């Protein structure tokens, strides 16, 4: 059984600082939802408010339609998995898993049986009487999940639990977490600053910046149709061209930029004359001048990174001191040799670029 979580105009202030600013959001029952954002964006504060360790300064949190105000973390239908896991080192693995049941006064033999079942579920059946320090990082991870599942929560809250693992294990655990979520059918709320984690695991992602949610959507919508300059630059790489919107027709706008007019799809209602940013993903850029004329930029090569399956070519910034222009080329065996300083023409399809109203971008 899982429940939905509703944030209704939730605000959290610490003195003068507003960590979470008027956030409203519906997380569906049985959904894998991720909050994605840089450190300090308020995502951990949201998680701590849902788990009950903090009470919001204003607004309501409802779990399964029930207002959680004044209900402590030990009486909420949530289970939190901590960033450092917070396993109890003085107890055995089985005692860790059964801790929540022990606190609920469940009989020792029943506790043991349930712990063994969960150890089976996380594929560690022989570790019941091991000590926590005898486990590897990935095993600890799974014990922490089992410990949280043991109390049969309706909502699982995960605070960047994979951040301490090495890359290989992290990728493996992503699949495993997703599988556990599917098997149990629980609502998972996941906090991360790692876009890869958020995009691969989640049903929906909420991108946060400065205490607000910039955009909520499916992974590919977040990536392909960012709603704000922050989302466009925080999630994945993006080339940015600043300028003034000259004309709009049929959803495609023309932007006057320092490198000439560029065309792209316009997001939302933007009138000519507006100060805008045009975004193009590096992998949507192609070598050579475009067929439709204007969307071509010619710049000297500043450096080339060979990554194996693809090649990253950085071109000199269009404006002095700006971000270099990035072009990602798939290594199809036909990539020419680039000389540093030699001018290269690149272009993009207007359908693959996006115009947004000017606003704050993510820090490099």
């Amino acid at each position, binding site marked *: 059984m899982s429940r939905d979580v509703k944030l209704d105009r939730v605000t959290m202030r610490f003195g003068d600082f507003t960590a979470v600013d008027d956030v409203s959001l519906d997380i569906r029952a049985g959904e894998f939802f991720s909050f994605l954002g840089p450190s300090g964006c308020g995502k951990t504060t949201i998680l701590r408010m849902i788990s009950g360790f903090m009470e919001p300064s204003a607004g309501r949190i409802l779990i399964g339609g029930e207002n959680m105000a004044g209900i402590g973390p030990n009486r909420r239908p949530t289970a939190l998995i*901590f960033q450092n896991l917070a396993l109890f080192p003085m107890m055995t693995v089985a005692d860790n898993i059964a801790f929540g049941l022990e606190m609920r006064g469940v009989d020792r033999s029943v506790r043991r049986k349930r712990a063994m079942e969960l150890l089976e579920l996380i594929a560690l059946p022989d570790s019941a009487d091991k000590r926590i320090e005898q486990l590897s990082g990935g095993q600890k991870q799974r014990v922490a999940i089992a410990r949280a599942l043991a*109390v049969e929560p309706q909502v699982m809250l995960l605070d960047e639990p994979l951040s301490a693992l090495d890359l290989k294990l992290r990728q493996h655990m992503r699949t495993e977490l997703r599988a556990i979520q599917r098997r149990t059918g629980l609502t998972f709320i996941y906090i991360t600053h790692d876009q890869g984690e958020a995009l691969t695991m989640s049903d929906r992602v909420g991108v946060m910046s400065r205490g607000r949610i910039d955009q909520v959507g499916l992974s590919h919508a977040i990536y392909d149709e960012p709603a704000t300059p922050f989302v466009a630059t925080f999630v994945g790489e993006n080339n940015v061209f600043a300028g003034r919107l000259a004309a709009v027709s049929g959803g495609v706008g023309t932007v006057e930029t320092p490198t000439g007019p560029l065309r792209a799809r316009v997001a939302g209602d933007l009138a000519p004359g507006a100060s805008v940013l045009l975004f193009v993903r590096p992998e949507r850029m192609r070598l050579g001048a475009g067929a439709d004329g204007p969307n071509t930029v010619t710049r000297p090569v500043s450096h080339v990174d060979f990554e194996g399956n693809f090649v990253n070519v950085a071109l000199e910034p269009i404006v002095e001191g700006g971000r270099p222009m990035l072009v990602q080329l798939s290594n199809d065996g036909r990539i020419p040799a680039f000389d540093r300083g030699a001018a290269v023409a690149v272009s993009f399809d207007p359908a693959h670029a996006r115009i947004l109203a000017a606003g704050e971008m993510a820090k490099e």
Partner: protein
Amino acid sequence: MSDLLRRYGWPITLFMIGTAAIWLVVMVVLPALVMVEYSFHPNLPVTKRGGPEDYYTIANYAALFRGVDLATWTFPNDFKVFVRTIWGASLVTLVSLVVCYPIAWHVAKVAPPRRAALMILLLIIPFWINEILRTFAWYIILAYQGPLNAVLLGVGILEKPVRWLSGSGGVIIGMTYAFLLFMMFPLINAIETLDTNQVEAARDLGAPTWQIHRRIVIPHAKPGIAVGCIMVFVLAASSYIVPALLGSPGTRWFTETIYVWFFEGQDWPRGSAYAFILLTLCVGFIMLVMRVFRVGLADIAK
């Protein structure tokens, strides 16, 4: 040792180890050995020492237990004092632990940093005052016509004043206060190292406050509790000033008995033997605590 050698070379290493060794040997080991030697001799005038009446004996040690009769449940005076000292020091240890634990928890985990620092300061400042003065202060507070009785009578908790200083109460209160910091700091240090997430994890899993302490905090703070208990017990068992000032004739402490044998009885061998019995008791307590709390010397040194 080899580490020191590599870092400082022979002369400095020798100097460092040598001074420490001289300190230990001259100030601690040799006087103790002299006392051990005394304790195994009969009490003789100076002229007869080394003569035919001088021989090795364990009579001074046996003297403490001479006259103990379990059948009639009679105990000689010195033995009673010895047992009372063990009991009293244990009680002081327990009371200290009960008093210090909530404060240590508050300072280490609950109070914001500024308040924690202020609380530690407030704990330390009274200890800048001489121990005798602090003990006298308690003498005044606990006096029959002193402020404690006055306040309790005024508030209406008591109907007639209590003689706090007539039983062991004054000694227990005075010692708990005198050795408070020796329990407090090991506890604060131990609790501080506990990862706060563990407390929150336990709470999130449904643990009520007392279970969090029973299952998470106390097991983690075990080495600190052990150190605090050892410190307070040893200090209490070997304290002289507090029982001398706050005790009554009926609540003599074993240290006072030792003093009497040395300086009033002029029986140094007997006094030495008693002193070693007290030392053995303390070492025994330390080993017991380490067994009970299942901590090693390395845990305690942390």
